[in-house]
């Protein structure tokens, strides 16, 4: 009888040697005539333990990590195929504190199952939501989404249900469900982990949306930086179609829904939904003015439900267990869970799914364990390149959309990038402006020209050239960008810039007394 060994096929695990570990295990197993079945699962999200190898024993899955190819011989010597003791043994995976303390709703299967095995997806509760949805009316599905309190996970955090209602009521000879898998925000990888680790979940979420709204076509806009996710998704889509979950007659319902995947081309702005639509139509990714709302006139002018991967991936559970179940997690008007992503200079980085309301301090201390460098944390950036930098004094604010916004932050896609005390915040402010200059779609002057000017002005401030006058100029520039940009690219770039300036004036050569 062969023993099942899990070695993640997730691209992050592969980036630190998972393929070599899998090969090594296969080779040593063959040499020692100890048959193994190697499953390339998703990642459990404990990045510092990757490559994390798990062995299925009678009682539970036993984890070892981080495993290097050179450890494999010793692991066999230690009898790891029976869960034997070894310096890298972490115990039963589910009991590792870091995992045990999480609330994994969206990530329940990620790292557990073989990502493209339909059998395993079904055996772990897959397709229950879709089957239930087939017996429901569109209106009642939309009601569940409304009740769940689910809000857009891609950034803006409006209630998802309202968008569903709009598309449901919109008239068109064809409707689309568009999945925004551009995941452009640095410091975020939850979309990638789901697409690589549980792709049927996204497919199921899109199919439910399609059935509810009478949309027959699902499009996924996937960033080109994710070739592994592309391969996995394409395989999963083909399998789902062959098994009747997609196609002209979804599970014998006579209803049609199918999914196609399109690859982005390295433009951050194409994560903005209207630029994404332009890109999907084969054009330059220029932001469209709104109205019309994409829900009314979106892809190819047709009513389109656009959601982020995380939003769509929350849908199967909401339909399966009911909106009220989902809404029982979280605080205030921030319902459900959010998969936070701990990144950058953090000791224990990775994916932490928790109900809203947790504080940054809990995430950084209890989960993150401080910095990777061992130095003090000086700042974190939450919500991607357009998010504010926050100093430790703000770490006790709960991560709730409203409260966090009051504190000057933006939860966005839930990415948290940690910096230690060697960071130069004036350099980070410069980078924010430079990023905007590189990625601006060019439609509005404040964003296109203002960001380039911003880089120059920050350079002067850093060089000590007429510092006060240039700081005033920088603030003016930021005001203009905030007020006169068509989209959040230009509109929010001032947020990291000004938060760096206000919270860390000493890095700009200003007296610390200016701290607000």
């Amino acid at each position, binding site marked *: 009888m062969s023993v099942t060994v899990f070695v993640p096929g997730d691209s992050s695990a592969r980036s630190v040697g998972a393929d070599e570990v899998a090969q090594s295990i296969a080779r040593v197993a063959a040499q020692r005539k100890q048959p193994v079945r190697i499953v390339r699962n998703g990642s459990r999200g404990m990045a510092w333990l990757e490559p994390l190898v798990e062995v299925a024993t009678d009682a539970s899955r036993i984890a070892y990590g981080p495993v290097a190819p050179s450890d494999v011989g010793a692991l066999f010597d230690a009898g790891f195929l029976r869960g034997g003791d070894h310096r890298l043994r972490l115990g039963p995976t589910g009991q590792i504190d870091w995992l045990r303390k999480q609330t994994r709703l969206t990530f329940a299967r990620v790292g557990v199952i073989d990502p493209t095995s339909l059998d395993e997806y079904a055996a772990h509760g897959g397709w229950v939501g879709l089957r239930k949805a087939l017996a429901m009316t569109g209106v009642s599905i939309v009601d569940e989404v409304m009740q769940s309190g689910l809000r857009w996970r891609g950034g803006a955090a409006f209630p998802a249900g309202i968008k569903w209602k709009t598309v449901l009521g919109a008239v068109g000879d064809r409707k689309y469900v568009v999945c925004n898998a551009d995941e452009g925000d640095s410091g975020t990888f939850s979309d990638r982990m789901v697409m690589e680790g549980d792709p049927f979940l996204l497919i199921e979420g899109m199919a439910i949306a399609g059935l509810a709204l009478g949309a027959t076509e699902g499009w996924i806009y996937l960033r080109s*930086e994710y070739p592994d996710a592309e391969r996995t998704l394409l395989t999963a889509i083909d399998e789902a179609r062959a098994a009747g979950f997609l196609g002209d007659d979804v599970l014998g319902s006579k209803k049609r829904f199918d999914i196609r995947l399109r690859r982005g081309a390295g433009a951050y702005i194409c994560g903005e939904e209207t630029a994404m639509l332009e890109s999907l139509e084969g054009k330059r990714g220029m932001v469209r003015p709104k109205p019309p709302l994409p829900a009314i006139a979106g892809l190819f002018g047709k009513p389109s439900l656009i959601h982020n991967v995380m939003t769509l991936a929350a849908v199967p559970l909401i339909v399966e267990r009911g909106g009220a179940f989902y809404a029982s997690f979280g605080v205030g008007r921030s319902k459900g869970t959010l998969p936070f992503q701990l990144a950058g200079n953090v000791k224990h980085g990775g994916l932490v799914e928790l109900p809203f309301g947790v504080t940054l301090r809990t995430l950084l201390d209890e989960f993150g364990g401080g910095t*990777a460098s061992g130095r003090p944390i000086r700042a974190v950036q939450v919500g991607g390149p357009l998010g504010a930098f926050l100093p430790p004094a703000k770490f006790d604010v709960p991560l709730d959309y409203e409260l966090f916004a009051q504190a000057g932050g933006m939860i966005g896609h839930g990415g948290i*990038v940690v910096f230690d005390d060697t960071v130069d915040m004036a350099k980070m402010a410069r980078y924010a402006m430079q990023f905007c200059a590189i990625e601006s779609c060019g439609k509005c002057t404040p964003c296109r020209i203002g960001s380039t000017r911003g880089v120059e002005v920050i350079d002067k401030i850093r060089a000590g050239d007429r510092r006060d006058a240039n700081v005033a100029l920088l603030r003016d520039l930021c005001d203009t960008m905030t007020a006169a940009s068509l989209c959040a690219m230009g509109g929010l770039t001032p947020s990291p810039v000004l938060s760096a300036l206000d919270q860390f004036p000493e890095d700009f050569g200003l007296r610390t007394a200016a701290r607000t």
Partner: protein
Amino acid sequence: MTHASPSDSTTEHQLAAIDSAIERLRSLDGALLPILHAIQDELGFVPREAVPRLALALNLSQAEVHGVIGFYHDFRSVPPGRHVLKLCRAEACQAMGSDALAERLAHEHGASFGATTKDGAITLEPVYCLGNCACAPSLMLDGKTHGRVDSARLDALVEGAR
């Protein structure tokens, strides 16, 4: 540019790749990006000669096709080196020392952004996040992501590509 004969640098093989990508994908909705990707997947870049052919096949102006190619960071108009190295320049990787890797590439390996090394081995490009931010700093070499890259790993990867 006119529909005149292909420039000398455009080989038969390249023209065949362009035509086959157009033939296979032209009927898709929003076909231009998928075709450009298919051409670049095959050739490593999008040759100038693709522009009039794409314009003709998709009923667009050459200016429109040019505009699209120029808008997206991914599409190259000149052939890359034998390997393409994309170094992540975004925040999480900066927090873990990616700037030092960029300097090392410049000073030790003669690689600068947007250019190919003199020996033709490596084209270096910036990338803004590879979704590997918890194993930073990261880079992508020929489509495979590498994480926790220190100077020794960087040197080994670069030397391996030479």
